């Protein structure tokens, strides 16, 4: 088991290194102008020298917009799911709309939100809230129905109240679904915050930096920003996966 875990790590790592080397050789070997595609070493050099700028962008986009928006949106989706669970009528009405909303291009709300909440991080956080609300609603409602009939009957035979059943049976059973939504939302939140910055922003932020540096053809800076964004996104996702493993340790997919 231990060696398999190591191999699971080794193969993708080797493939990644192969990609980076191939990229470097391709750019250097064919003399691709850095306006089109900078070499990994150039990007690394830029990344090291412009850390303060990258950090400021990270704070503006990730700490001020992504994290609060993701928290509020997911929490709101979860609370509405609880209310839906209590009132069947609301569930029947909202769930089809929630499913429909998953298919809609919600990023389109960005210009409206920028108009309502101003150029600064508030409008970006609002965008993230809107984007993360529906996936959580739909998943949490599904998750709350995931516990089996037998288990629910058992709780009733114990004389458990609605709240006790929720806390001790149905919430734990819903956790895999809720974590699924949290993970989906982590990537959606990054996208929402960055895209909202295209519609107006103060002079800081990942989306702002990317669009201005593209205009100035500073592609090494753009790639440095992408590297930071990918790192943040992966770390966020990875953290959630770890947390999920801790909370839903009982789930069949983690059994050994």
């Amino acid at each position, binding site marked *: 088991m231990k060696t398999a875990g190591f191999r699971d790590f080794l193969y*993708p790592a080797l493939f990644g290194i192969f990609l980076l080397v191939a990229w470097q050789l391709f750019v250097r070997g064919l003399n691709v102008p850095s306006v089109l595609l900078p070499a990994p070493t150039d990007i690394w050099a830029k990344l090291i020298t412009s850390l303060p700028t990258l950090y400021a962008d990270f704070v503006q986009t990730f700490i001020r917009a992504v994290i609060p928006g993701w928290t509020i949106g997911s929490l709101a989706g979860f609370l509405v799911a609880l209310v839906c669970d209590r009132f069947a009528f609301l569930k029947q009405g909202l769930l089809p709309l929630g499913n429909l909303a998953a298919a809609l291009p919600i990023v389109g709300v960005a*210009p409206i939100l920028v108009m309502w909440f101003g150029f600064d991080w508030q409008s970006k956080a609002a965008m993230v809230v809107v984007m993360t609300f529906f996936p959580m609603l739909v998943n949490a409602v599904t998750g709350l129905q995931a516990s089996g009939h037998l288990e629910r009957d058992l709780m009733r035979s114990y004389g458990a109240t609605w709240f006790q059943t929720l806390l001790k049976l149905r919430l734990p059973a819903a956790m895999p679904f809720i974590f699924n939504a949290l993970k989906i939302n982590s990537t959606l939140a990054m996208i929402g915050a960055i895209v909202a910055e295209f519609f107006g922003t103060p002079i800081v932020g990942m989306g702002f930096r990317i669009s201005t540096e593209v205009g100035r053809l500073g592609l090494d800076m753009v790639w440095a920003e992408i590297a930071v964004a990918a790192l943040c996104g992966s770390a966020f996702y990875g953290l959630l996966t770890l947390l999920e493993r801790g909370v839903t340790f009982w789930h069949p997919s983690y059994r050994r």
Partner: protein
Amino acid sequence: MKTSSGIRGGSVVPVTVIVLLILVAWYIAAIFMNTVVAQPRIDAAGGGFSNTLSISWGLERPIIPAPHQVVQEIWMTAATVAPWETKSLVYHVWVTLSSTLLGFALGTLLGIALAIAIVHVKLLNKSLMPWIIASQTIPILAIAPMIIVVLGSLGLTGLLPKSIISMYLCFFPVTIGMVKGLTSPDPMQLDLMRTYYASTEQVLWKLRFPASLPFLFASLKVAIAIALTGAIVGELPTGAQAGIGARMLTGSYYGQTVQIWAALVAASVVAAGLVYGVGGVERLVGRRLGSQA
């Protein structure tokens, strides 16, 4: 989780009630949110309840337009203007739709090809799969401007750059769904194929591919929805020439709120139509394969 399960018979009443409630809330919100702009005019008109309603719901540049204003804008720009003029909403929807469909087709092909490779080559499963997942942690929509500019300087302009962004977003759900679908035949069936002395290719076409169709269509519904999102965002950095995204951008530059909302509603209708269309193809294919449903 299917993206769109449609509205089933039992939920027509609740959905209608909720939609009506949303519309009522929208109208009420329009009164209060537009106060800043509307109040001076209401006072000038002499106040009163009917003046408040007619002015808050009829502003030229409202903070939030009333639903009927949005419908009116859509009617004005879609039905009264020739569809090939740049003023027409139909023209912009077509621009976005064409790059969505091209990106969707490319992404689906790439996704299926990757899934077939992953299922058949064991080494790829271990090495490629994590990178396919990692590729989606890069917020592609954020690099969209760069991709558009880089492809533009390579001489690729117009439809293709936007489609490539759609493709990049599309292929992921297709690959994930198809890997699951192609590996869904159980060992008994695979063993049966082996006793028939079927080649790998025959197993793929006669067993794995038909078995994967439900997974494929579930993925395609997700994929076509994000393809549309990709195409819309792809239009933002091109300097707002044409398309639904461009309508939104020009609307936000010039404070034309109604235009933004009209573009948004148009995009939603297109999205719902596309997902519904994929569902229709699914039913057709299902009938051809003799499914009972």
